[in-house]
């Protein structure tokens, strides 16, 4: 009873005296995220949006992206030259940069990092893209030459994305090891690691000596709030300033739009969504069947019903805002009558039965329901196979030859459609990432030649040709290009989110 009395006493006394915030005038931005960042080391980073976002704010690459145009701008490198064969990139580096641990940045730091990334012994999922580098040569303290084995059309982009090519403090990596460094990262970026409380928050503070000038935000706190309903209440209450695109749920948009202190913003991404099809299994090995599936899908209905209006009807694999998107591809019409004709031609006048693997989480189950209804209208009976995401991926790794269809899609990583086309449709990428097991020697040949063409407009022509073939062969049924959603308090004035949907807080300001 005494305990109860104490509890009542204490709790009643605190009802009205909400804790006084200490008088600090710090400009703190609180970001609500659903997944906890594990660490700040690109070489050890697993596939996680949260890790990518913290890394993007603590590290620099040699270049950075112009927030408005997406073009590469100088960052740790002041200028660069590309050799006439397109294989060697020579970067001149800044001389005034220090890592967060106080050591100086120079050409050998670039070499040490790139050599680690390209050897590929580490598990970092994004740095694997740097395996295209064949040699890194220190020319002098502030000049470095990076050579690739074959021409890489998107090389400058790789050099501008910290989750791929972050420059880490070599002495800190040496001292702490990969795992230790992940827990106490040290880069050159606008924000420095402060602390990470497991299950609660990841905190970085402004790097006051940042070479492009001090950030306007003093501290960023990523608060881990796994439940979307809780996250929304925190934003409405003002205890969270920003819900990033990985945590924002489309279902909340309508309700939040009406609040005067909250901004709802939709931004384009590089995420392309489609039905993945096992191209070598009957009946899907018949191109007429694959085309029929495409005609049977009502893409407008998917966007309106399943995505609540957020998304763009797609016409191919490369998103509209990515370099290489073919503007004149035939529109993918909804035409169930034509779909039935094609199925009859293919020898399936009464349709057939098939499985569609669906992963949980918005919007997949809703999209699957629309697809199931659409296909039923043309006689194709779909059994939905709900599988937890990791289970689904593992299932397809193991059952690559026997699965029917998977509702997924791919995100581009760099601003050049070549990488996306190559990953998805190059025959040597079977069984993964080309898990549709699509083979077309003409596509292989065009992809091989496109990578060698340095002239952008010439390359574009080849990309267009590839996309025409893909539309004809229909190895996947394109559905829509996903867009990102951001919910934030109106006290924040600038938020730069790139098409990978990572937020760069260096450009942000917040009024207190």
């Amino acid at each position, binding site marked *: 009873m005494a305990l109860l009395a104490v509890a009542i006493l204490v709790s009643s006394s605190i009802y009205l005296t909400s804790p006084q915030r200490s008088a600090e005038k710090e400009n703190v931005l609180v970001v609500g995220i659903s997944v906890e960042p594990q660490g700040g080391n690109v070489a050890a980073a697993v596939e996680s949006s949260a890790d990518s976002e913290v890394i993007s704010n603590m590290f620099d690459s040699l270049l950075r992206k112009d927030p408005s145009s997406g073009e590469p701008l100088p960052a740790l490198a002041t200028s660069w030259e590309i050799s006439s064969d397109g294989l060697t990139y020579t970067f001149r580096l800044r001389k005034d940069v220090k890592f967060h641990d106080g050591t100086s940045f120079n050409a050998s730091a670039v070499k040490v990092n790139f050599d680690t990334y390209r050897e590929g012994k580490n598990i970092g999922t994004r740095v694997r893209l740097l395996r295209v580098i064949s040699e890194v040569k220190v020319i002098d303290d502030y000049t470095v030459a990076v050579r690739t084995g074959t021409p890489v059309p998107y090389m400058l982009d790789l050099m501008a994305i910290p989750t791929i090519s972050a420059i880490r403090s070599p002495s800190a990596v040496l001292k702490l090891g990969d795992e230790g460094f992940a827990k106490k990262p040290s880069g050159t970026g606008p924000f420095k690691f402060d602390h990470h409380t*497991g299950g609660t928050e990841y905190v970085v503070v402004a790097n006051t000596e940042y070479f492009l000038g001090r950030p306007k935000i003093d501290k960023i706190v990523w608060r881990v709030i796994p439940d979307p309903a*809780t996250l929304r209440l925190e934003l409405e209450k003002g205890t969270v300033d920003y819900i990033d695109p990985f945590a924002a749920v489309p279902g909340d948009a309508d309700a939040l739009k009406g609040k005067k202190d909250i901004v709802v913003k939709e931004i384009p991404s590089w995420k392309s969504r489609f039905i993945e099809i096992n191209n070598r299994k009957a009946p899907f090995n018949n191109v007429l069947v694959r085309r029929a599936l495409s005609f049977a899908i009502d893409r407008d209905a998917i966007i309106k019903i399943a995505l609540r209006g957020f998304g763009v009807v797609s016409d191919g694999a490369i998103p509209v805002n990515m370099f290489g998107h073919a503007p004149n591809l035939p529109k993918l019409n909804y035409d169930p009558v034509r779909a039935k004709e094609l199925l009859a031609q293919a020898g399936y006048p009464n349709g057939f039965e098939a499985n569609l693997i669906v992963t949980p989480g918005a919007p997949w189950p809703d999209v699957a329901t629309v697809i199931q209804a659409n296909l039923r209208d043309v006689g194709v009976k779909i059994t939905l196979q709900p599988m937890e995401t990791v*289970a689904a991926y593992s299932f397809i790794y193991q059952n690559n030859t026997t699965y029917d269809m998977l509702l997924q899609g791919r995100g581009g990583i760099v601003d050049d459609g070549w990488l996306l086309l190559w990953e998805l449709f190059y025959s040597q990428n079977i069984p993964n990432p080309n898990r549709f097991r699509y083979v077309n020697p003409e596509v292989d040949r065009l992809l091989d030649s496109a990578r060698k063409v340095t002239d952008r407009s010439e390359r574009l022509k080849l990309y267009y040709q590839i996309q025409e073939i893909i539309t004809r062969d229909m190895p996947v049924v394109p559905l829509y290009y996903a867009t990102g959603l951001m919910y934030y308090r109106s006290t924040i004035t600038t938020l730069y989110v790139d098409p990978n949907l990572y937020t760069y807080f260096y450009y942000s300001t917040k009024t207190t």
Partner: protein
Amino acid sequence: MGLREYIVRRLLYSVPTFLLVSVIIFVIVRVMPGDPAVAMLGDLATAEDIKNIRRALRLDEPLPLQYLTYLSGVLQGDLGTSVWTRTPVLTEILSRFPATIEVTVLAAVIAAIIGIFSGTLSAVKRNSWLDHANRVWVLAGSSMPFFWLGLMLQILFAAQLGWFPVSGRIDREFLPQYITGLYIIDSLLTGNLGSLNSTIRHLILPAITSAAFAAAIASRMVRISILEVLVQQYITAARAKGLPERIVLYKHALRNALIPIVTIFGIMVAWGLGGSILIETVFSWPGMGRYMFEAIGKRDFPVIQGVVLFYSITLVTVNLLVDIAYGYINPQIRYE
């Protein structure tokens, strides 16, 4: 048999339990669909990358060998290393256990207080409007899902009235100096009233959410138990002696009625630990339940195994304590 001997024997009996739990969970995580290597590398990895990771994690070894490696580690107090964070599982568990225990114990205390109070009232005022009202709330309390009740409390008391924070364990600026990891204890030990205030404000909603079900069940049990005791002859004798009803009720009836209630305290703690997965997700609480839930999503085998083993040890300990307490309340019970 003395108490010490009894405890030793109970602990020995629990060894097979732990072994069984460790085998079952070891097998379950491995037959569960989904591969840790795939979870780490995402769906774009090549088959070779996946193979390399599997080898690095020693997942390519035969299962019995993996189990023996694991078991020999456990016997030396090493629960393994998280596949994702590369942190020792035991370190992570110990850093999150206080958070879970704080809610679970507070919830069990709240449940016991409310349960005993409302159950007694209900039994004494049998068939009055109070009893009927109590029946309604018992039904509601035992049928409301955690996540729904939690959300409703958040909307009303945090978002609308603003009395409590929506989620989290403490305000960042009030983090107490680390001593036990139990923020209430730590802030009391350091005399940090700001911390205590912030801790309690954060604790109340999750604890009430967690307590609702157990309180309802306890209330029902207390009511039945008291009604049974009240018709016993010694109660009639006490009344015949002319003792005031208050003394009859609280000194003679309630004390005996409480014996069966003590046993369910262990069940309440078990229920709280099981429910911690939902409660901690709704309230962004950095405890063990959420830690395990996230580990399942990532197929972090050592973490899942470690948490389950740790939970079973906790439960065996709590039940042992309950049985010992039982003996103190009822001297007739012998340790056999």
